């Protein structure tokens, strides 16, 4: 299996899959950052520092390649560093799509860049990507997305049937395990969940939002589960972002991938659109899932998210929706503090 590590949001994995490669979204490593600290200063986000660190430790040498979407300066930094210092990963690509999704010219440029990316993938894979293969990959990925959407619906209708940790783990596993195999596993999970009666609801219905590029620290979901809070929806990268946007099936499959980017469902803080903002998006999620509150999770030093947060949180507060912010960090995160703050939030919602 030729595994290609993917970094950065909105990588069109279907292109890689159709080329016979296995795209795997690189997770944040548990390794303490050591050698990476020599190349990337502390003001860069923990996820990118982790990717750079494991790359420099040669733990990514098994990869057949890496593809990075230049969504922010942090990813750009990682691409440059690894390209120079990890030549063992011989194929390292990056691509750039315009962040302003609403502009008329964006689509045409993405068409060009997507075609260019496809060409480079073909060169590496050693053969052309036939339209038929790309159609099949898109259908497979859409099937995968559909299954996760069903699971998402189940946690909404049966709050607590899946813990917050379990749902994040299921999505994250899907970022790594080949979709052909994973769809079968997901179908079994769905069957089991459908057969499981709704547990009694012990705590509030919550939405988790944020944490671009990497999964939130495990203790956050664990604490929420222990407090009895039911995460009934999310706006997480290792959550609904990964399955919310179906790729439309067009005669030209590349056009479908372009449309999926330009019309993506999540409101990504690294992108801009003029029809709705993060606050609008979260209000929709809250209403659709009958949630009682939102927990914003921002990875420390994730700049795009920092900019999006103030207006989004204000919109929620103005709508009477309780919200809180947890800034997560790799180093020196106080687990006790996280627990206390979440407990206070949950109790405050329950008290109202």
């Amino acid at each position, binding site marked *: 299996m030729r595994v290609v590590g993917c970094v950065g949001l909105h990588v069109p994995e279907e292109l890689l899959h159709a080329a016979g490669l296995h795209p795997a979204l690189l997770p944040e490593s548990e390794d303490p950052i050591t050698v990476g600290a*020599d*190349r*990337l*200063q502390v*003001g*860069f986000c923990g996820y990118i520092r982790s990717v750079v660190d494991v790359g420099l430790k040669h733990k990514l040498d098994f990869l057949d390649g890496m593809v990075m979407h*230049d*969504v*922010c*300066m*942090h990813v*750009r*930094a990682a*691409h*440059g*560093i690894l*390209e*120079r*210092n990890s030549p063992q990963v011989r194929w390292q690509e*990056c691509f*750039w799509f*315009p*962040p*302003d999704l609403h*502009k008329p*010219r*964006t689509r045409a*440029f993405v068409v*060009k860049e997507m075609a*260019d990316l496809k060409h480079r993938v073909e060169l590496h894979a050693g053969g052309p990507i036939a339209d038929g293969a790309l159609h099949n990959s898109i259908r497979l990925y859409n099937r995968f997305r559909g299954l996760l959407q069903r699971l998402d619906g189940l946690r909404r209708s049966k709050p607590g049937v899946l813990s917050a940790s379990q749902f994040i783990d299921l999505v994250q596993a899907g970022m790594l395990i080949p979709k052909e195999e994973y769809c079968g596993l997901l179908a079994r999970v769905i069957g089991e969940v459908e057969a499981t009666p709704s547990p009694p609801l012990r705590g509030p219905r919550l939405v988790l939002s944020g944490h671009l590029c990497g999964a939130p620290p495990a203790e956050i979901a664990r604490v929420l589960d222990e407090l009895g809070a039911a995460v009934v929806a999310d706006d997480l990268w290792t959550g609904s972002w990964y399955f919310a946007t179906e790729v439309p099936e067009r005669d030209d499959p590349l056009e479908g991938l372009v449309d999926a980017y330009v019309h993506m469902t999540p409101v990504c*803080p*690294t992108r*801009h659109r003029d029809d709705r903002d993060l606050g609008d998006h979260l209000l929709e999620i809250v209403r659709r899932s009958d949630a009682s509150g939102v927990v914003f999770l*921002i990875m*420390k*030093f994730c*700049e*795009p998210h*920092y*900019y*999006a*947060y*103030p*207006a989004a*949180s*204000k919109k929620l507060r103005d709508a009477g929706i309780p919200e809180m912010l947890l*800034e997560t960090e790799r180093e020196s995160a106080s687990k006790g503090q996280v627990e206390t703050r979440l407990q206070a939030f949950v109790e405050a919602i329950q008290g109202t």
Partner: protein
Amino acid sequence: MTEKGENAIDEEQRKAFNPMRTPGRVGKIMDDYFEELRGARANGRLVAWTFQGVPAELLEAMDIASIQAVKNNGRINNAGLAAPIIQEAEAAGYSENICSLARANIGYALLLDRGKLDHLPERLLMPKPDLLFTMNDCSILGNWAYEVGRITGAEVYNIQTPYMYDKERRFEYCLSYVEDQLGDVVRLLERLTGRPFNWEKLRDILLIIKRSSQIKREIHELCKRSPSVRSLVDSMGILGVTWRADALHCRPEAVRVLEDFKREIEERIERGVVSVPGEEVRLGWIAQMPWYAKDDVTDLMAKNRTTIVGCGMYGAYFPGWKIRDVLPPDGIDPEQPIKTLAALTISHPFGDPMEDRFQETIVDWQEGLQCDGLVFASPRTCRPFACWMPDLKERAEQELGMPCILIEDDHSDKSFYSKAQFDTRLEAFVESVKARKESPKAREKKATPT
């Protein structure tokens, strides 16, 4: 113990630094321009805040009063009045970890929107914008501008500037993409002003930019001498007028300042006046010098007979030069204004991959400047500047054989700056550079003709 602490230098030592005179003019020019800016609306003109290296030439051609938002930050910071502004942004939920320039500008916008800028004297006031003109070679510039737009109600135009990896393959269509966007900007400005675009004025402005860029290159050549007649402090002192991306650099005044700067350098050469008498060490500075640390930089130079000869952001300082192959002979063709401005926009160093940045801002820039060492100043909240610094430093050490040091600071947030660390580390670095210069190996190399 003096106010500045144990490492303070005495007046005699401070005299061992000869600042240039020309930068002293810039304050008045800036004050006059800000007055014009504040009166713009009353005179029927629109106001634009600009960011990064946008083609503000387009705005000036349409008589829109433009100002680089960060220049206002700088003036407020220099006056020691930035704290309430930054606190306002942080109180509104903007993290202390975002770009400090953005934080200051957002804070300013918030206070402006609420009419709460009473703590600022009039000369430091910047009027509310009608337009925010930005580009995204730094990925958060769009976020920043859209937030300010949300606060002020101003229209935002964010030029989508591609990351310029693999230029050979992508340059032409990326250039074409930005040219098309600039065409959209022209139509936007016509709509906002209700007037047809003034192409003739734009050509005249490009002639000014062309001349400015030429003088900058001539100055750079003149400064390739030891001991140095100009220091980083002098170069930064005229940036307010000569840095791209607002009206100031589009006007004949910018050319006059540059001509005066050049003339002063020529006079100093003739009279044997140098920046640091008895210069023993020459350092290059990679990234911005934090303006609040200007005195510390000056003291470092004076106390250690060290000249910081300038700052490596080559292409950004000599607009057009790196695209001279695209638009010969110097990258600025007034007869192809949109192509020129598009090429300038996508050639900003932040949009370049590591190899290009190394070549342009370090290798090409320092050639001939006879630097004994390089200081990499990594700003905590500016990821584009901080990006790749450890690797660039390592390459400079390995490929140029140049001793280098990496220090952390921030371009405008003093909480990330430590004077003690600055003094201690840089003085130690200077000492090590001196020792290296005096080593038998270095002496032998110097004595051996090449």
